[in-house]
């Protein structure tokens, strides 16, 4: 059942609560499991522990081992078995625990999850949600802070999304679980503890749509997941310096919302994209290329990328030098000629 249907069928709207993103994600999975008995949840430590980030807290106790289970510690196995379950009418929601630990599942995701609909001419669809906590800024040791979104976004057949706030986290996860397409659900670890006052079930903009979070007239600043907060802080700081920055939360990386971004860029004439992942061949490269192709004659300056450096993600004491900051973003914007 889609969230829209849920709302239409009159699911009680609960009293507003102050929820973290982790709690909002938890509520989304729980509500989806209540509404749809085919939703099952499994992965490493998602059972009694409730996941290393507690996103699945309490679900094992509420739904039991049939629907919530700890799996053996093997990511290809988690995704591969989810494929078979989906072929038999279930809607698996699986967790990869950490970005860099999703790589053993790369073949299952790229060769099967992404391609099944296509190779079977639509006869087999895989409604699977693969949750991947990603990105850094949590002082994690190595292999715990990768931004792996570009690998997935570059793969036809996948829908790749990343919420930046608790309301979107709830709404987008509900929609992802209801989708008949496989969804890579990238959860920015550094935002798990971000709080918002929410009356659930909340429905925000649909998947596949970017959202203008803050209007501005001088620059379109494009961000997603962990860097949305950075972009908003940049806009605050920019305003104090007399620069009007429009902040767009892309929300869905694949497909890219050309319409919303194009409208903004045609208004401001300038754009920059911010992400934690390395720059070379990163998601921002695609954003810069396609936004330029479609809006070249509206642009006053080349599109900038303010990103992580082209190095492996650094150790905790050095990550502050790696991550894009408002100062670094404003400095980059100041390199344009402003006439």
């Amino acid at each position: 059942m889609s969230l829209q249907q849920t709302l239409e069928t009159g699911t009680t709207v609960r009293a507003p609560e102050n929820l973290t993103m982790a709690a909002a994600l938890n509520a989304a999975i729980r509500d989806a499991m209540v509404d749809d008995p085919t939703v099952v949840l499994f992965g490493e430590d998602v059972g009694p522990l409730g996941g290393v980030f507690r996103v699945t807290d309490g679900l094992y106790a509420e739904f039991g081992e049939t629907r919530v289970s700890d799996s053996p510690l093997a990511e290809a196995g988690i995704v591969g078995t989810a494929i078979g379950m989906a072929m038999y009418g279930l809607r698996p929601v699986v967790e990869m625990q950490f970005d860099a630990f999703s790589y053993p599942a790369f073949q299952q995701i790229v060769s099967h999850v992404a391609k099944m609909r296509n190779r079977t001419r639509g006869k087999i669809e895989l409604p699977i949600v693969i949750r991947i906590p990603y990105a850094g800024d949590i002082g994690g040791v190595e292999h715990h802070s990768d931004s792996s979104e570009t690998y997935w976004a570059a793969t036809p057949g996948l829908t790749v999304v990343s919420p930046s706030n608790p309301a979107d986290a709830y709404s987008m996860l509900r929609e992802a679980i209801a989708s008949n397409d496989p969804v890579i659900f990238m959860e920015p670890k550094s935002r798990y503890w971000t709080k918002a006052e929410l009356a659930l079930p909340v429905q925000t903009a649909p998947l596949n749509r970017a959202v203008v979070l803050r209007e501005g007239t001088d620059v379109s600043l494009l961000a997603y997941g962990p860097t949305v907060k950075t972009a908003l802080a940049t806009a605050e700081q920019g305003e104090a310096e007399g620069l009007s920055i429009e902040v767009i939360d892309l929300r869905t990386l694949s497909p890219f919302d050309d319409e919303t971004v194009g409208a903004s860029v045609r208004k401001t004439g300038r754009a920059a994209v911010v992400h934690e992942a390395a720059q070379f061949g990163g998601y921002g490269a695609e954003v810069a290329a396609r936004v330029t192709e479609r809006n070249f004659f509206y642009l006053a300056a080349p599109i900038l990328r303010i990103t992580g450096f082209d190095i492996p993600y650094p150790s905790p004491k050095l990550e502050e030098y790696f991550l894009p900051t408002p100062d670094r973003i404003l400095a980059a914007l100041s390199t344009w000629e402003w006439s």
Partner: protein
Amino acid sequence: MSLKVESTPNAVLAPLPLRLIDDRGNAVAESECGEFTLPSVDTLLSLYRQMVVARRFDVQVTALTRQGRLATYPSALGQEACEIAAVAALAPEDWLFPTYRDSIALLTRGVEPKDILASFRGDWHSGYDYHEHRIAPQATPLATQALHAVGLATASKLKRDTTVAVTLLGDGATSEGDAHEAFNFAAVWQAPVVFVVQNNQFAISVPLDKQMACRTIADKAIGYGMPGYYVDGNDVAAMYAVISAAMDRARTGGGPTLIEGLTYRIEAHTNSDDPTRYRDSADVDLWRSRDPIERLEKYLVAEGALTDEVRAEITAAAEDLAASTRECMTEQAVVDPLELFEHVYSTPRAALAEQRAFLAAELGGDAAASADLTEKSAR
């Protein structure tokens, strides 16, 4: 250079595989059959018929491939006992997870030749009705499908259904990490799944003693905590009996089983392979003399079940199938280039619609659709 200091061929260490009918077509003494009994003559005759028809199909498709009418075809010649036994043991509600080499398993489960060959002649990646036949698409990335089988079997268990999943694997595929994960997940979750490993002794050119250092693939089952059986893969009676028992066990809550059928890939890996570079033709001749069909034929003739009349009827059925296989290749399948965009997502994407329009324009369709995007953006 060998990475092993001392290489011991697995065959030297391996025990004798379980068989119910020996090389000469004689029933093996009951005392040597363990918990298994020889299937009825009616069952064996049915398996024989299916093997003969399957081989005719395989030989026909290999010929069509040599004529250049198919892009490729991985033959299962010599492996009919494993393939046919696995399919014959399936109940209608069961699912089969095959590989690219298992086309004759599809045929035996009722898939039309034209639908099997859709992928090998390049029409589309895969071309049959998976839900109707309860067969997953033939997997090319090795051992990946074993995990799908475990997942489907687990879903069946969660729903309290009786559906069992059977997956076919090759010996080389057991070196893949996905095979390990599939065996382990299946055993931990007690999934109703049966792994049928066709040990045809070669992964393209690499022999089994360069894949593993243990005696048999079946031995590995011990490490996962599930039953394992080392079976003569050219004895369809034994393969059928062992797989059927494993299916019963899976269906009644007994969990997974790993079955190794020792057989031989008589043909090359595919038409683009040259097996003379890595194996002795004397070995091939030896294994030809252990042919699974001839063995059963001797048994059935001795039992009086395979009369000239029955044999003629089976031959006619095989020839009819060969003729219809040739015929289906003369029909040109119409492949619409615009279908490329149809099955990527459940709902249309704007960017794909643009690319579809671009291709349509190239093909002489709607010229307006080809308008340059930059030009459009300038307006």
